[in-house]
């Protein structure tokens, strides 16, 4: 992992760390399943605060780039294939249609989940 920090860029340091890790995941320099260095180690090596690195790692996890395994650390998420990505996009599109159709009659997301569970039970 390679990270450079610019203190004059005006961009928050956690954002700089996050972006550089994202670009290394995207380029394949960091492989799926690979562990990121521990938060404390990264903070020490970069000479920044612990919560700064924690914030970057939390954002990476929230964005789906990484996942955190309790007590083990943070790992690069498995990469979705193009086919998988396409499937999820289509699924999302259809669900969006259903959601807006339901909303017209005042049926919210909670009710939709109930209905899905009902279907599963049949």
């Amino acid at each position, binding site marked *: 992992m390679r990270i450079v920090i610019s203190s004059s860029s005006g961009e928050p340091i956690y954002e700089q760390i996050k972006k550089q890790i994202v670009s290394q995941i995207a380029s394949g320099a960091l492989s799926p399943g690979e562990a990121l260095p521990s938060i404390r180690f990264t903070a*020490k090596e970069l000479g920044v605060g612990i*919560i*700064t690195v924690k914030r970057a790692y939390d954002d990476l996890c929230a964005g789906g780039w990484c996942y955190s395994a309790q007590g083990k650390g943070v790992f690069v998420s498995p990469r979705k294939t193009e086919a998988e990505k396409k499937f999820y996009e289509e699924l999302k599109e259809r669900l969006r249609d259903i959601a807006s159709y339901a909303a017209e009659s005042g049926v919210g997301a909670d009710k939709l989940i109930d209905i899905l569970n009902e279907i599963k039970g049949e």
Partner: protein
Amino acid sequence: MNALEIKNLTVDFGDFAIRNLNLDIKKGCVTGLVGRNGAGKSTLIKTIMRQQQATGSILYDGKKFCEHEVEILCETACVFDSPHFTLNAKPKTLKRAFAALYPAFNCDMYDELCAKFALPQDKRISKFSLGMQRKLCIIFALCQSPELLILDEPTSGIDPVDRAEIVTLLQNFMLDENHTILFSTHITEDLDKIADYIVMLDRGRVLLDEDKITLTESYRLVQAPELKEELRAAAIGIRESAFGYTFLTRLPVEGEGLAVTTPTVEQIFIHLSGEAAQR
């Protein structure tokens, strides 16, 4: 989890006092204590280290001092504003004394760090420069293998090269997630680098207690050629120069000729202290 829980702490010197101070120091984090001269930083640190009488309560990692005195004293190391051992001694003598006093004293680490910072072992400490004395104090505190490390102005009087080394030493100490650092400083550059939480003291009160990201992101530093009424209402700690105004604000402001930036801890400190002094 809190390394320290300070409740209703009151220290009364007559003309100066800490009154009903409440403060939690988070475990596993670095907390920087800032404040002007006489704000109460050293008094607070001395009180935590039981060198100063006070009323109120302090819990150490959830434990009461009176019930776990030895344990707490072994797990807490402090670098005071001046050396708390005799300057007539030589480091090698002190090392033996520390090793006898603290069961966890790390002699190997001590030798290694003294070699790294070129601190002679056979010379009276009184002959050391102030910077060398400071470094020796920090080394003794680190080698005590504490869980909680408290430092009063650890980097004052130390040149930039050694300061960077000391900051790295402190970050090394923080690799263990059970370790906590509380340090007071005037050198806010060090805070900008490694502090996770910032506590600002002003005349014995907590002016501010916030994590560094939230702190720097909740303020904007604005430079304006003139101060219109709507700006004045939102401005904190206005400083005037011949050519314009500089102030902090919590509100999003924009406009022709305004320079808006994210402030450093030092800039927040200067403007908030200025605002507090006016009140």
